[in-house]
C-alpha cells in the first residue's frame, strides 16, 4: 500500500552545510506526527522541501502516489498540502478575516477582468466566501476577532490565525511549524484542542514541536531528526524516554 506522504533520500547542501542527509520517512493518513529534534536539525528544511519552497539536491517526496518534485508552492497547496511558518508570516496590515480569505481557493474576482466586468457577481460571491471564512475563524476560536487587524491580535491569536489560513486552503495534510511555541498555558491548551479537533475531522498533521508536553499529549507518532537525518521513529513515550536521544536533544547539539 502506498504511503500517504513519503520522503525518500532527501539530501541538501547550503553552501558548506549539509542540511539534509539521506532523509527518509513516511507519514500515515489521519495521524498527528510530531517532528522533533535539536535546533538546526533540518525540520524547517524538510517543510520547505515538501512544500516546494526548496528543491532538494537529491531525493523526492511523494504524496498519495504522486511525485511532488519540481512543483511550485501554489501547486502543492492545490495537491492538498499546506504549511504554516515559524515566524508566522501573516499579512499584518490586513484583518484576520482578510488573512483567511486570501487562502480560500478558486475565488471569482482574483483577476482584474472579472472584477471590472462583473462587479455585482464578485460582490455576491465575496459575501458567501466571507461566511465561509468566518466559519473557519470560528473553528479556531477567533470569530470575534475577525475584523481586527493582525497587528492588534495577541501572539496566541496570531498563531491560531496561521492555522485558520491553512484550513482555508482546504488542504488535507497540514504542516504546522511550532504552532504551540511561545504561548501561555491557556492558549497552549486551546491550540492542542484545536489540533485534536482537526484530526477528528479527517486532517493529517505533521507538526514541528519543541515542547515535550505537547508532543506527549497530541502525537500519535514522533520523528526524531538530527543533523538532517531521521534518527528514530516511534511513539512519543518511546522517543521521549530514550536516553541517547535526550542526550542529543539537550546535551551536545547547539
Amino acid at each position, binding site marked *: 500500500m502506498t504511503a500517504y506522504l513519503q520522503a525518500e533520500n532527501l539530501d541538501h547542501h547550503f553552501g558548506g552545510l549539509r542540511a539534509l542527509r539521506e532523509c527518509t520517512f513516511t507519514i500515515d493518513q489521519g495521524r498527528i506526527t510530531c517532528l522533533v529534534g535539536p535546533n538546526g536539525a533540518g525540520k524547517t528544511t524538510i517543510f520547505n522541501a515538501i512544500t516546494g519552497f526548496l528543491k532538494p539536491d537529491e531525493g523526492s517526496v511523494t504524496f498519495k502516489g504522486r511525485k511532488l518534485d519540481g512543483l511550485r508552492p*501554489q501547486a502543492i497547496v492545490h495537491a492538498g498540502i499546506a504549511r504554516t511558518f515559524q515566524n508566522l508570516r501573516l*499579512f499584518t496590515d490586513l484583518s484576520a478575516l482578510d488573512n483567511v480569505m486570501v487562502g480560500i481557493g478558486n475565488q471569482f474576482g*482574483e*483577476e482584474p477582468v472579472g*472584477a471590472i466586468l462583473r462587479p455585482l457577481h464578485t460582490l455576491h460571491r465575496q459575501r458567501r466566501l466571507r461566511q465561509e471564512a468566518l466559519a473557519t475563524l470560528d473553528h479556531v476560536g477567533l470569530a470575534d476577532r475577525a475584523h481586527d487587524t493582525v497587528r492588534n491580535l495577541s501572539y496566541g491569536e496570531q498563531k491560531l490565525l496561521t492555522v485558520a489560513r*491553512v484550513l482555508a486552503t482546504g488542504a488535507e495534510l497540514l504542516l504546522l511549524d511550532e504552532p504551540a511555541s511561545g504561548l501561555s498555558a491557556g492558549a497552549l491548551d486551546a491550540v492542542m484542542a484545536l489540533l485534536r479537533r482537526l484530526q477528528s475531522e479527517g486532517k493529517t498533521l505533521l507538526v514541528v514541536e519543541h515542547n515535550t508536553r505537547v508532543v506527549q499529549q497530541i502525537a500519535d507518532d514522533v520523528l526524531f531528526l538530527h543533523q538532517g537525518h531521521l534518527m528514530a521513529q516511534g511513539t512519543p513515550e518511546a522517543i521521549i524516554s530514550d536516553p541517547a536521544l535526550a542526550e542529543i536533544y539537550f546535551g551536545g547539539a547547539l
Partner: protein
Amino acid sequence: MDFLYSYIVLAEIYVLLGLSTNLLVGIAGIFSVSQAAVFGVGAYLVAHFLMAQDALPFIPSLAIAAACCVALNILVTLPSLRVSGDYFVVTSFGIQLLATAVFTNWTGGTGGANGLPGIPPPDIFGLQVESTQQYMMLCTIASALGCLCFYLVMRAPFGRLLRAIREDELAVAAAGKNVLRAKVSAAALAGAFAGIAGGLYATFLSFIDPSSFDLDASILLLTMVVVGGARTLAGCIIGPFLLLALPQILTLIEIPTTIAASARQLIYGVLLIVFMLFRPQGLAGERL
C-alpha cells in the same frame, strides 16, 4: 478660463497615468521607470491610427492602442519578475531608454525628434470633440471610468491579493496563490490605463514628440504617486493635480526658461527624497 480647462484636461489625463503607476508601483510594488514609455506607445499608436490612409475612428483606435500597451506590459514584466525584483529595475530602465531611442530615431513611424503634428481631434459617434470644454467632458468621463475600474479592482479579491503580495509574497504562495500571475495582471491593467491616457493626450495636444515620454516623464509619474500617496484613489487624483500646477507656480517665481525644465526635474527629485524620508505614505495614501 480656457487655461483652467486645459489644466484640468491634462490633470485628468495624468490621473489615468496616476492610476496606472499606482497599480504598478504602489500596489504591486514593482519599481517602474518605464510608465512614460508605455504612455508614449499609446499616444503614437492612436495618432497613427487616426492619421492613417484608412483612418480608424477614435474609440477603436483607443481600444487597439490599449490592447497593445497591455501586451507590452505583460511582455516586459513576465520574464523579469520571474527572476528577481532588481532585474525588473534594469528591464524598466532598458525599456524606457529603448522606447526613447525608437521615438527619436524611427522618423518614418514617429516623426523622430521633430514629433508628429496634425493629430486630428476625436470623432466619437459623429460628435467632434474640438473645444477645450468638450475635451474636459471627455476626459472627465474617461478618468471617472478609470477611477471606477480602480475602485472595483481594489475592492475585489484581486485587490486583497495584491495587498497581501506586497506584504509577503512567500506567504501568499504558501496560501496557494499564483503571485506572478497577479503581478503580471496588475501590470497589464496598468498598461491599459497608460495606453488610453496616451490616446487622449495625443488628440488633445494634436502634436506629440519624444520629450513627453522620456525618463524625466517617468520620474514625474513616480513623483505623482509618491506625493499623492500610494494605493489610494485619492492619491491618484491629488498627485497629478498638484504636480501639474507646479509649473504654473514656478512661472510666478520668474525662473528663466533655459533652466525651467531642469528646475522642475530638480524639484521632483527633491520631492522624491523628502517624501521617502519623511512621509512615505504621501499626502493621502498608504505607506509605500
